[in-house]
């Protein structure tokens, strides 16, 4: 029979755990709202950027002299994977999902005889990948989840562009959690280099036969637009990932609080039974003692 004092201590400890998890849940809910708002506020820019990229890409369609950031450098020997995770844990399968997807991709690419390099955004991804692929991690950026600003994302974009120009890799893609709803976050891949016009709204507008005027000229525009676009893509995946992180944490902490509640109920029942059993034993002892006299 479990002893009463031990049970009482255990119940108290589970209670304080529940307090912590439910506080974390509420913090995550508040942060989620903010993250969702900034993700939504950033959407118009990303959409219009995609549209402009579409217009430019159509101007370059089929031309040999397209910049490498747009069309790639024609090789795909060295892959750079950008793995977006959070700096902090306790958010369910959030980080594990991304890392698993990255592992699968790394294995695939290796089977095809390609070389893989990894850029980690966020501590958790680095910690999980370091054990198996430590030598492939070229760099890690931490502290992105605090007060994320566009400038921080742009810096990451610049870093990627510089690595590309230094010939460190040929193809670059990002893996991150896309925010679908509070309950679902989807692990998604996106290609950064070549900057293919592959997704939403990248369609060139119908000009009725007219041709764009480029000022100063299309190369110079692309020269500054492409790094900018890189920053925007990184920014967007970071925002999505952040919203997903808070959503995942909220769900995880909600589950944890509920589990703690169930556990407290069970322990309480056990505690009461034990207490009752002790009382019954005592009474029986007294009664049989009295009868014996």
């Amino acid at each position, binding site marked *: 029979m479990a002893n009463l004092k031990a049970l009482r201590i255990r119940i108290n400890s589970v209670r304080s755990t529940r307090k912590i998890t439910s506080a974390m849940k509420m913090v995550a809910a508040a942060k989620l709202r903010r993250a969702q708002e900034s993700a939504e506020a950033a959407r118009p820019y990303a959409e*219009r950027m995609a549209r402009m990229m579409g217009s430019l890409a159509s101007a370059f369609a089929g031309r040999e002299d397209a910049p490498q950031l747009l069309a790639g450098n024609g090789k795909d020997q060295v892959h750079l994977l950008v793995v977006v995770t959070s700096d902090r844990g306790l958010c369910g399968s959030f980080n594990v999902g991304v890392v698993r997807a990255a592992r699968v991709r790394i294995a695939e690419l290796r089977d095809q005889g390609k070389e893989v390099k990894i850029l980690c955004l966020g501590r958790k991804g680095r910690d999980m990948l370091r054990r198996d692929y430590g030598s492939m991690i070229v760099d890690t950026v931490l502290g992105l989840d605090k007060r994320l600003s566009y400038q921080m994302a742009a810096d990451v974009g610049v870093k990627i562009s510089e690595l590309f120009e230094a010939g460190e890799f040929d193809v670059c893609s990002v893996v991150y959690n896309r925010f679908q709803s509070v309950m679902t976050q989807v692990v998604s891949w996106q290609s950064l280099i070549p900057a293919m016009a592959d997704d939403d709204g990248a369609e060139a507008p119908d000009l009725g036969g007219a041709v*764009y005027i480029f*000022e*100063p000229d299309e190369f110079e525009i692309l020269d500054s637009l492409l790094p*900018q676009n890189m920053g925007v893509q990184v920014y967007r995946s970071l925002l999505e990932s952040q919203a997903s992180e808070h959503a995942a944490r909220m769900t995880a902490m909600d589950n944890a609080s509920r589990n703690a509640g169930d556990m407290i109920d069970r322990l309480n029942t056990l505690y009461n039974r034990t207490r009752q059993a002790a009382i019954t034993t005592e009474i029986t002892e007294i009664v049989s003692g009295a009868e014996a006299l």
Partner: protein
Amino acid sequence: MADKVNFELVSPERLLVSDAFDMVVIPGGDGEFGVLPDHAPLISTIRPGIIDVHEGSSIAHRIFVGGGFVEVLPDRCTVLAEDAVMVADIDRALVEEDLREAELTLRDAESDHDRRRAEGNIARLGAMLEAARAN
């Protein structure tokens, strides 16, 4: 055709202006240009400077932009700005301080990358200060 330009100004963080106006004057990479309705399709870079949005005979907004891109179509004009502030909201003291700081950064810059970035910053802050003075 519409007799107004649908002008949109977006920065990476948010959508700042979205409305129809008579004319928009933009500091393009190759010089200032005005956009009226039915302008020919154009894509241009923007250098640090002021965007003037005209409504009737008066200026409705004066917005400072630190660089970016503009896409003009016959019925609309979209500006993707790196950072944008209403000229009236510029805090001169703050900008002056940032400028001093940027100059210090430039002096201590070690890599080419840092130096380029500091130079860009100085150009942007200088233009911002000028915009605030002109106002």
